């Protein structure tokens, strides 16, 4: 019962970040498609949603001890990881088919099928929100991990997925004209440039884009409040193990990074996004993304804390680490 290799690594945290952000982006794009008054989010943002999910899947596979057997994760419908894998697969296909509807090529023969756009938006909304939330469900169900256990972590992950998804949509919309200019020499159709600008129906699109910084700021305020409450409840919570795990975040070895996440990943972008200065808002959106990945790395690392059985920690301290001279000579 050694402590070696008993916790998920940073690659799973990065998977949670990309998959969650991709899910959040797809859900936001779906809401705009369904209720946005005939407009869409930018083509780049719509493409980045499923692409981010794909990147997340890549990190998940790399985290496995046996990456070439990765297809087996689809086998147990009772397992949250299986549900997540299926949802990501459906979301990536559906999200990509929806996103390319914004490309004015004859090859995309379904690009003008309005009903299909709405149907795909419904699928993307459900699968996107599920992917955005499932890491929290996965962690919250771990009975022996005091920092994670309970439904609170699920809300925090969903919120972070939405806030990072909004931030990347905002940056994508900004990048679209730049991308259009860069691609201009290779694009033959003038309408391609029109679509690459990210505007299908200019008036509501502009309104949504201008509303994004405010929406992100509101979500960041909620994130600030929920994380404060979560730690306070854990610290004063049900078990000593929960209190000890929260203490690591408040004044222990994880506190510096956590404070960095709260100040630079939550409060600073909140202020920057409320300023009516484009450069500040861009900086704020970038900080949101950095905060999102930091939060996930910290949270996954907290899985080291387990509800230990009597005498177990003392036993672990007595175990050899493998670096002992006599072991290296005689055993390893």
């Amino acid at each position, binding site marked *: *019962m050694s402590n070696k290799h*008993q916790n998920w690594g940073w690659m799973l945290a990065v998977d949670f970040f990309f998959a969650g952000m991709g899910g959040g982006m797809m859900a936001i794009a779906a809401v705009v498609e369904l209720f946005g008054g005939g407009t869409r989010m930018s083509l780049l943002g719509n493409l980045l949603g499923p692409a981010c999910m794909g990147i997340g899947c890549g990190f998940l596979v790399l985290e496995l*001890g046996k990456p070439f057997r990765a297809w087996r994760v689809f086998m147990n419908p009772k397992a949250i990881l299986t549900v997540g894998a299926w949802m990501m697969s459906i979301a990536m296909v559906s999200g990509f088919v929806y996103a390319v509807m914004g490309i004015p090529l004859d090859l995309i023969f379904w690009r003008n099928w309005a009903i299909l756009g709405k149907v795909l938006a419904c699928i993307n909304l459900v699968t996107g929100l599920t992917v955005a939330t499932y890491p929290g469900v996965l962690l919250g*169900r771990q009975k022996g991990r005091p920092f994670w256990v309970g439904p609170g972590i699920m809300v925090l992950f969903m919120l972070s997925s939405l806030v990072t998804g909004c931030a990347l949509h905002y940056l994508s919309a900004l990048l679209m004209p730049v991308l259009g200019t860069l691609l201009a020499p290779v694009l033959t159709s003038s309408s391609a440039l029109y679509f690459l600008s990210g505007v299908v129906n200019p008036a509501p699109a502009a309104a949504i884009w201008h509303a994004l910084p405010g929406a992100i700021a509101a979500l960041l305020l909620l994130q600030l409040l929920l994380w404060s409450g979560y730690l306070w409840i854990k610290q004063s919570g049900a078990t000593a193990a929960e209190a000890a795990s929260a203490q690591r975040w408040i004044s222990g070895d994880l506190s510096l990074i956590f404070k960095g996440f709260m100040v630079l990943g939550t409060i600073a972008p909140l202020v920057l996004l409320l300023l009516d200065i484009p450069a500040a808002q861009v900086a704020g959106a970038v900080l949101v993304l950095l905060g999102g990945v930091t939060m996930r790395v910290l949270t996954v690392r907290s899985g080291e804390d387990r509800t230990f059985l009597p005498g177990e920690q003392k036993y672990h301290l007595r175990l050899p680490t493998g670096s002992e001279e006599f072991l290296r000579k005689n055993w390893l």
Partner: protein
Amino acid sequence: MIRYAMVMDTRRCIGCHSCTAACKIHNELPIDIVYNPVTTVGPVGTFPNLTLSFLPLLCMHCDNPPCVDACPTTASVRREDGIVHVVDSKCVGCLSCIMACPYGARHHNHESGTVRKCDFCKDRVEQGKLPHCVATCHQKARIFGDLNDPESEVSKLVKNNRTVQLLGELNTNPSVFYIY
């Protein structure tokens, strides 16, 4: 139907670690993996009224195992006789079961990339033999048998003694019982 279970008589355990060594040798475990540690609890109290006890740990072979539900590949299996084990050829090393087990009874083998755990020495049990840790325990602190057989020693011990299941509040219903 058989339900294999183990009773740990902590009044008899002297903390000699014979069970740990027997398990490690016979299962050829790597240096950093121990299936059944014996932890020391105490000393507690005030001199001269001090007490020290030993707690043999292993996989609890839960009746409601969270590790089996967490496994996305169906590599973690609970057999009909209650033994929980890992089918190595199906395991992808995702560590979901390690994170789900509240007893820390599962281990990532970095050489094979898969997860290993105590399986109650199922191959021996199928031959009618006792698990290595039970066969080795010279204090008879570990007793193994069929919990559903009213004539078995484990069944009688559980029925007639004050026993506890570790972390029973988690609704895992372990098959390992402790007499204290």
